């Protein structure tokens, strides 16, 4: 299991990266390589050239900018996991990062790489969709940003145009005082690709009424999806279990679930509803300061 031959380039700047990508349709970006390298080893992917962006300073780091936390594409998952801004401002991301792969893959894998590979079961794309993140791309043509909704098109398929490089993801920070998050996933083994995962973030006012809600489901279909209808329905409620169940059931019918060896489409649909409810319930409880 050795990759087909390729050239390796480690450009010094984003500009050079874009030029390299523009010059060769079969060039591919590599950052942490935790998703790409297995595909190379199995020869499922056979680029002519790998453009290594892992060490580009422009793509590394986490900062606050306006109402968002901006994470450079080449920031390693392990670094994000331990970062104070993530812990303080992006509780949902902080909650899911320990579920991404294993500790050793998080030591190499990057936040941007997980988004760019768009595995339907991956946790970081789910958080991006759930929170309505903005994904920033750069190519020779310039900088372009798109919402996570537009970005994820299909199974491992994204809207990244040829020649572009994902540079950062901007995850909105909720400013409400009482924000809670919940996340659940189920897989055969804890670190496997999730059969289904669900993430939720809610904000409550002092009376415990929901003022903001975001619910996302991953792994069930060909890409992560957000339950906007359910989220809207829950705003203004006290997020009782009944409220949550009714709201989730509104959206669950639209979920297109897939079937594979490990989990049937029926299973995914059923469990997506259960996990979504649990995630919202946990989010409510954590916003209320109850342990979840």
């Amino acid at each position, binding site marked *: 299991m050795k990759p087909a031959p390729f050239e390796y380039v480690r450009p010094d700047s984003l500009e050079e990266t874009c030029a390299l990508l523009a010059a060769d349709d*079969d060039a*591919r970006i590599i950052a942490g390589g935790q*998703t*790409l390298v297995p*595909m190379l080893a*199995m*020869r*499922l*992917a*056979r*680029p002519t050239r790998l453009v290594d962006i892992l060490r580009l300073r422009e793509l590394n780091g986490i900062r606050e900018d306006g109402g968002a936390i901006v994470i450079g594409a080449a920031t390693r998952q392990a670094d994000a996991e331990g970062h104070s801004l993530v812990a303080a401002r992006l509780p949902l991301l902080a909650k899911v990062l320990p579920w991404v792969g294993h500790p050793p893959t998080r030591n190499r894998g990057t936040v941007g790489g997980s988004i760019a*590979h*768009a*595995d*339907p*079961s991956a946790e970081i794309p789910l958080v991006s969709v759930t929170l309505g993140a903005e994904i920033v791309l750069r190519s020779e043509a310039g900088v372009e940003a798109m919402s996570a909704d537009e970005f994820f*098109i*299909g*199974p*491992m*398929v*994204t*809207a*990244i*145009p*040829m020649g572009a490089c994902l540079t950062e993801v901007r995850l909105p920070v909720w400013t409400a005082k009482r924000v809670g998050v919940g996340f659940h996933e189920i897989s055969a083994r804890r670190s496997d*690709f999730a059969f289904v995962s669900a993430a939720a973030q809610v904000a409550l006012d002092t009376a415990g009424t929901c003022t903001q809600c975001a619910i996302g489901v991953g792994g069930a*279909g*060909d890409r992560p999806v957000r339950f906007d209808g359910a989220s809207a329905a829950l705003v203004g409620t006290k997020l009782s279990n009944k409220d949550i169940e009714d709201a989730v059931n509104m959206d669950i019918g639209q979920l297109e679930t*897939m*079937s*594979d*060896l*490990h989990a049937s489409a029926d299973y995914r649909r059923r469990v997506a509803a259960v996990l979504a409810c649990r995630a919202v319930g946990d989010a409510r409880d954590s916003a209320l300061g109850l342990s979840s």
Partner: protein
Amino acid sequence: MKLEISGSEVIAAPVEVLWASLNDPAVLTRCIPGCKRMTETGPDAYMVEMQLRVAAVGGSFEGEIALTDKEPPRRCRISVSGSGSLGHGNGEAHFEISAQDDGHSLLSYSGTGEIGGLVAGVGQRILSSVSKHLIGRFFTALRQQFEPAAQAAGAQR
């Protein structure tokens, strides 16, 4: 791995125009994802060369396409088989075209396919959704044939 496909698409073209397009190697080359070249090898039979790419995954294929049971401009059967570095596959689909209002046509299809080799062995988890995605890409491209404005949307990968 066995795949079953079926669906229907509304295409902004009259029945005859759509029929002609589906029988035009130039159009098919543009619409079949990754198709590099179609060479006619006999009546309604073509050799195809493809460079398929879905996200980071990609590989070259060689295969054959044949159109049979033609009932112009309504029905035909299309069979595809090929193999390449990622594995091999074959399939057969039945197409039916019916006229809609305002010069549109409804293209209905149903068929089955099989995929084997490397991708079946290591990619079972997403193979069926990838296949659906590729079929979707074919119809997107086909629709774009008749809606030039939509072509500005840009390439996907």
